[in-house]
């Protein structure tokens, strides 16, 4: 049914590309395309000083094993690619940005009465056993203490997921913004737009812009114009304390909650994240803040005196299979649905999209990230 595929734009054509949405995907695409010599304009509904993207709310974990446990092995393959790609990309963004990449694995722990959750995790990841680099090590109490001395001693066993890591994501977003400036990407903040082939129209003014190609990466912001897309609420807490030091993400496995704490620069920690099938963006609920704070208190009681700097709420954009998808038609490429895997899957998704745009090389992820052409394009209401 699909028409013969042709690249959306020739490479180095100097063509003008308009990108709607300056979240992680929009910024990364703007950066990569500007490096390839395209002229790029980036539009976002929020202001650059108070971003509203899921990428800003996210904890920035790079957890291919943990995510594959709840999403399937393709997330592992694309995630492992993402880990390597981030390292390269951050090197290109400069020595400071390189410091934002951490790869010392991640820990999974469970209360003594919930240790079956660790066994369940091993069962859920058995399909990854033969995948490259998939090292899951069982740890006893002493080994846990050695890796993370501030972890509560009540944990008698845990798992170290060796290939996993995390990013200082807000710092990275800032470095990206700087490089876009120096690459002369035109940044239209506080400019919500309507998306159409070759055209972006400002919603609040009569202004409109013509491009050789429009890329729609508005994330959950596009859900009103795409029936297949939904938002999934996530809530996080940002804490600060000098009393606890973790060098890697720690995840608490509980029968009903799987919450994690991710260390950030300046003695900060992000505790995340709830996952509620709702497009509610109202402030965090008492129930969720109780779950998040009791999880972190369990991991290290010294968190009790940490200060709550921020309670984040945002929507993860998701299609029905919770995997990213792209839709291509002349003049418009729609890319969305990174769900809870933004930082993990963005590199694979971006490289896949770049291959669609210039067809410089075949995408290695064509089988995981099907491109829908005009016969099954998203329905715009």
């Amino acid at each position, binding site marked *: 049914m699909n028409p013969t595929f042709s690249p959306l734009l020739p490479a180095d054509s100097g063509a003008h590309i308009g990108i709607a949405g300056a979240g992680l995907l929009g910024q990364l695409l703007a950066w990569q395309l500007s490096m390839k010599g395209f002229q790029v304009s980036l539009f976002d509904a929020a202001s650059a000083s108070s971003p509203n993207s899921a990428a800003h709310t996210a904890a920035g974990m790079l957890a291919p094993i943990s995510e594959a446990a709840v999403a399937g092995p393709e997330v592992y393959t694309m995630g492992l690619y993402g880990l390597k790609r981030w390292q390269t990309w951050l090197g290109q963004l400069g020595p400071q940005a390189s410091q934002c990449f951490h790869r010392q694995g991640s820990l999974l722990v469970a209360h003594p009465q919930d240790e079956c959750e660790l066994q369940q995790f091993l069962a859920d990841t058995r399909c990854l056993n033969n995948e490259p680099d998939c090292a899951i090590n069982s740890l006893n109490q002493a080994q846990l203490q050695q890796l993370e001395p501030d972890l509560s001693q009540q944990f008698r066993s845990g798992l170290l997921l060796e290939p996993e890591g995390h990013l200082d994501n807000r710092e990275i977003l800032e470095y990206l913004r700087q490089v876009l400036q120096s690459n002369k990407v035109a940044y239209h903040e506080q400019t919500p737009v309507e998306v159409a082939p070759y055209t972006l129209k400002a919603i609040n003014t009569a202004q409109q812009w013509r491009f050789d190609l429009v890329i729609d990466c508005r994330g959950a912001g596009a859900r009103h114009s795409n029936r297949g897309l*939904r938002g999934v*609420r996530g809530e996080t807490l940002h804490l600060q304390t000098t009393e606890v030091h973790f060098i890697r993400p720690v995840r608490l496995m509980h029968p009903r909650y799987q919450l994690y704490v991710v260390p950030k620069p300046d003695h900060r920690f992000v505790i995340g994240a709830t996952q509620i*099938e709702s497009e509610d963006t109202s402030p965090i609920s008492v129930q969720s803040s109780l779950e998040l704070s009791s999880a972190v208190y369990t991991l290290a009681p010294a968190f009790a005196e940490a200060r709550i700097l921020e309670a984040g709420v945002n929507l993860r954009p998701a299609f029905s299979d919770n995997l990213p998808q792209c839709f291509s038609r002349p003049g418009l490429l729609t890319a969305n649905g990174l769900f809870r895997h933004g930082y993990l899957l963005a590199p694979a998704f971006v490289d896949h999209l770049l291959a669609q745009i210039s067809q410089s090389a075949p995408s290695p992820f064509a089988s995981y990230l099907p491109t829908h052409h005009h016969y099954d394009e998203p329905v715009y209401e």
Partner: protein
Amino acid sequence: MNNDPLTLYGQSFNSRFLLGTALYESPQQMLDSVAAARADIVTLGLRRQNPARGDGERFWQHIRETGCTLLPNTAGCKSVKEAVNLALMSREIFATDWIKLEVIGDDYNLQPDPFALLEATRELIAQDFKVLPYCTDDLILCQKLVEAGCEVLMPWGAPIGTGRGLLNRYALRTLRQRFDCPLIVDAGLGAPSQAAEAMEMGYDAVLLNTAVAKAQNPPLMARAFAGAIDAGRDAYLSGLMQTRQTASPSTPTIGQPFWHQTS
């Protein structure tokens, strides 16, 4: 319609497998699992979705795509007031007077609070709801729920999400002997064999969620449960043989007259 329908509150269903819609990897996996289960009724929880503002609408749309009868639940409610309010909201959103009533009494094992459950049941029945109560296997509680007007009882097999199967067979058998109304084992099942056992006991249907949603291949597990539920139902209808103390060969042993048997 087959000749052995499940009838709940006057409505007939082909399937005796009620499936929950939470905990799947994705809505698509949920849809695939419901299809593989051949379920006619699916449950859904709204408590945390800010239902008053309809913020869960896009997810609910996926649940509607199952084509099944929707059975909203009050999962997560810990008081009569919360449960009643949520039931009222569900009735408005999904245009159904059916409610799977849960009032949770313990945070860790999600054990139902029988006292609050009975109170909420009375209040909802007074407001014309058709209540399907998630209850313990306590005979007296079940009697009072029926007296209050419940036409279906949904006792647990084990606490929610534990996968421990039928923990108190004596109590579950007693309920079957004492009540003519439809009985559905709700919660605690982990393996299809446990569902088959409940059906062999004469239970009318099985409701579960975690055992399917948390399997490594949920649609396949849904199919396994569907088969076990059918098998258990057929076994119950066909009449299980009584167990005996002595072995009895199914082929007579020639040359061994019965008067030679010793006790």
